[in-house]
C-alpha cells in the first residue's frame, strides 16, 4: 500500500513537472488564436526560450533572470510573427513554419558562439528553486520522498503555470481587454467599426504568445532539466498547440489537455524506472501517439474563433 501511494506520488509529480512547459506554451497559443492569429511558430519560440533561459541563467547564475530573458526572447520572435502576419498580411502558417526554423536556428547559432561551438549550454549552477522545499526532509513537516514531497515539492514554474492559467482566464473573460481580444478573433470587421484597433490588439496577443512560449522553453531547460540541448524541445511546442485545440481554445481546457499529455510522459518515465520490458523508444512515443489519438478521435467538432487565420484588411489604403 505504502509503495503504491508512493508510486502514485511519483507519477503525479512527474506529470506536473512535464506538463508545466506545455501549459505555458499552450496558454500562449490560446491568447494568439483568440485574437484570430494562428501561431504554429510556438515550437521555435519555445526552443529559443529554452536556450536563452539556460544561457542567461548560466552566465548570470540567476535563474529568474534566465526565465525573464527567455520570455523576452520568445516575445521578440512573437513580434516578428506579428509584423509578418498582421502588418504584411502574410500567410500565417508559412510565417509560423519560418519562425520554427528561425527560433531554433538562431538559438543554435548563438549557442555555438557562446559555448565553444557546442549546440548545448553548460549546466546551470542554480535552477529555478523549489519554493516549498523547506517543508520536506528529516525532522520537517513531511518526510522526503514521501507522497507529499513527490507531489508538492515542485519548481516555482509549476505554481506559476497554474497561476497564469487563472490569470489568462480572468483577463480573457472578465476584463475589457480580454473581451476585445475575443471580439477581434471572432469578427474583426465588427470590432473595427466600433473603433477597436484590430492591429494593435493582434500585435499584443501575438507578442504575448511568444512571451509565454519563451517561459515554456525555460521551464524545460532550467527547471525540468538544468541545461539546454538541441533535442530538448523536440515537438513540445506542437504538443502544446494540440493541447490548446483539444482544450477548445480555453485556458482551463488547455490546462487539462496539458496535464493529460504530461501524464503520458509521467507514465513513460514511471514504466521506464520500473524496468518494464518495453523498449524505451516505444515508451517515448506515448505522448505523441496520445496527441494523435486525441486529435483524431476525441476533439470532434471544435469551436475555433470564427476569424481565425483570416487576413483582416481594412479595405482601404488610399
Amino acid at each position, binding site marked *: 500500500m505504502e509503495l503504491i501511494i508512493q508510486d502514485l506520488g511519483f507519477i503525479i509529480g512527474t506529470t506536473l513537472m512535464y506538463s508545466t512547459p506545455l501549459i505555458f506554451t499552450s496558454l500562449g497559443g490560446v491568447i494568439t488564436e483568440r485574437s484570430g492569429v494562428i501561431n504554429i511558430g510556438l515550437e521555435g519560440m519555445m526552443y529559443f526560450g529554452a536556450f536563452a533561459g539556460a544561457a542567461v541563467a548560466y552566465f548570470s547564475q540567476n535563474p529568474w533572470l534566465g526565465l525573464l530573458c527567455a520570455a523576452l526572447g520568445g516575445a521578440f520572435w512573437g513580434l516578428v510573427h506579428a509584423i509578418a502576419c498582421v502588418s504584411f498580411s502574410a500567410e500565417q502558417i508559412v510565417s509560423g513554419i519560418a519562425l520554427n526554423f528561425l527560433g531554433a536556428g538562431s538559438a543554435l547559432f548563438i549557442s555555438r558562439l557562446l559555448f565553444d561551438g557546442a549546440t548545448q549550454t553548460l549546466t546551470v549552477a542554480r535552477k529555478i528553486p523549489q519554493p516549498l522545499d523547506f517543508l520536506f526532509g528529516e525532522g520537517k513537516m513531511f518526510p522526503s520522498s514521501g507522497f507529499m514531497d513527490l507531489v508538492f515539492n515542485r519548481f516555482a514554474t509549476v505554481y506559476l503555470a497554474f497561476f497564469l492559467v487563472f490569470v489568462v482566464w480572468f483577463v480573457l473573460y472578465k476584463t475589457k481587454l480580454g473581451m476585445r481580444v475575443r471580439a477581434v478573433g471572432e*469578427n474583426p470587421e465588427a470590432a473595427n467599426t*466600433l473603433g477597436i484597433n484590430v492591429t494593435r490588439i493582434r500585435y499584443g496577443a501575438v507578442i504575448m504568445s511568444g512571451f509565454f512560449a519563451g517561459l515554456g522553453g525555460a521551464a524545460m531547460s532550467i527547471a525540468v532539466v538544468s541545461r539546454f540541448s538541441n533535442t530538448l524541445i523536440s515537438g513540445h511546442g506542437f504538443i502544446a498547440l494540440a493541447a490548446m485545440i483539444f482544450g477548445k481554445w480555453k485556458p482551463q481546457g488547455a490546462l487539462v489537455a496539458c496535464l493529460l499529455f504530461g501524464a503520458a510522459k509521467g507514465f513513460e518515465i514511471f514504466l521506464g524506472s520500473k524496468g518494464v520490458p518495453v523498449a524505451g523508444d516505444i515508451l517515448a512515443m506515448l505522448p505523441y501517439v496520445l496527441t494523435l489519438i486525441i486529435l483524431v478521435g476525441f476533439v470532434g467538432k471544435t469551436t475555433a474563433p470564427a476569424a481565425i487565420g483570416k487576413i483582416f484588411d481594412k479595405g*482601404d489604403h488610399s
Partner: protein
Amino acid sequence: MAAIDFSHIAVEMSGITKKFGDFVANEEINLTVHRGEVHALLGENGAGKTTLMNVLYGLLKPSTGTIKINGKSLNIFDPNIAIKNGIGMVHQHFMLVESFSVTENIVLGNESTKSFGILDTERAEEEVVHLSEQYGLTVDAKALIQDLSVGSQQRVEILKTLYRGANILILDEPTAVLTPQEIRELVAIISNLTKAGKSIIIITHKLNEIKQMADFCTIIRRGRHVDTVKVSEVTEEELAAKMVGREVSFKVAKEKQNPGEKILDIRELYVEDSRGVMVVNGLNLQLHKGEILGIAGVDGNGQTQLIETLTGLRKAKSGRIEVLGKNITNLSPGKIINKHKVSHIPEDRQKRGLVFEFDIAENMILESYFKPAFSKRFTLLRQNIYKNAATLIEKFDIRPQDATVQAKSLSGGNQQKMIIAREVSNEPELLVAAQPTRGLDVGAIEYVHQALVAQRNEGKAVLLVSFELDEVMNVSDRIAVIFEGKIVGVLDADDADEKEIGLLMAGGTA
C-alpha cells in the same frame, strides 16, 4: 412626421468623390441632413450609397470632398472620430459577434468597467435594458446573438449606436431582411428616434417605405448626385424614374399562356428542420411547363426547408418528389441540377449562391466546369471560361463589366444578377427562385421578373418563393399559399384577391 429643425444642419457632405483604383464609386456628391429629419438615399444597386455612408462613418477615406457635422468641419478618417461626433451606422451586413451576448455586443469598444479594466457586466446589462425601454427596442440583454432572429439582431445594431450617444443614425438597407411585421416595428422605432431629435439617413430600395418614413430623398445614379426631393411632393413612379433614368413598370407584362405537361410533382412531403421539428407536413404541389407558381406565406412556414429538399440540400423524411416523371427525392444536388435540370436561385446569395473569393467568370461555371466547353481532361479552358463570362456580363448587364473582379466586391444587386445569369444559362426545365429580388433596386427587380417570365415563355417551369405578397401576385400564374408546412390553398393569380391570400397565410380559411 416629427418636426424638423431646419436651423440645425446635422450632416453636410459636399463634393464627395471616392475612387477605388480607376473606378469612381462616388463623384461630387452633396448631402444635407437636418436635425430630426429622416433622409432617404435611393439608387440602383452599385450606385454608391453604401460607399458614401462608409465615407461618412470613417470606414473609407474620400478622395476629395468635405464633411461638416453639426456645423463643424471634420476629417473623419476613423470610425472612432465618427462615433465621438455622434454618428452611428447600422451596416447592410450586420457587424455582430455571433458568440457574444447582446449586452457584450452593445458595449464592445465602450465597456463600463470597475477598477483594473474589469468588466462591470451587471451595470452594462442595466444600461442596455434602460436604453431599450427608452426607445422601445425590445431585446433580451443576456441572449446570445446567434440565437436571435434577424429583426432582433437589427435592434441590437441600433442599440449599439444609441449606446454611444449617436444623434445621426445611418441605416443601410435595414428592411431588406425583415418580415413585414418587423418592418412595422422599425417604422415605429424610427419615429421615436426622430422625436428625440435624432437625424436618420436610411437606404432602402422599397419606394413605399420612403414614402412612409422619409422627409427628403437624395437620388444617386452611377455614383452621381441626381436630385434631392421633398418626399411628399413626388410619386413612387417619379422616384423610380429619377433613379433608373427611365420609366420603370411595376406591373409585369406577360401574355396569357396555357400550361403544358406536368414538370414538378410533390406528393405527401415531410421534412424536418435542423432542430428535428417537422416543418413540412404532408405537402402536395404540382407545377407545369410554361407556368410560374408563386408560393405565398409568412417566413418560417417551411418554405426554406421545402426548397432545400427540392434542390437536394436537405433530406426528406418521407414523401416523393418527381421531375418530369422521374423520382428525384433525396438525390444529390449535382444529380438534381445536371441530370434532372433543376436550377436554384438560393435565398442566401452569400452563403449558397457564390464563392466570394472567386471572380465573376469562375462563379459562372460553378455548376458546369466539367462540361466540354470549359474543361478538357484535367485542365480548365480558361479562354472559354472568360469568353462565357463576357457574354453573360453583356447579356445580363452585370456591372462592372469585368470578368476578373471578385464576387465579393460587387454590389448586392449585381451579385444577384450573376447568380441568375448562371442559373438561367444552365437551361433548366425547372427554375426554383427563392427570394430572388431581396435587396434589389426597382430596376433590377423589373429585370429579374422579366427573366422569370422569359423562362416561362420558353416553356420552362418556375417555382417562385417570396415573402413579398406583391411580388408573388404580380409575377405568378398560380399562387399556392403555404401555412405550417402545408399548401392550404391554390388560386389563379388573375382572380386572386389580396385579402383572401392574407387570410390563408394567417391560417384562416377562405
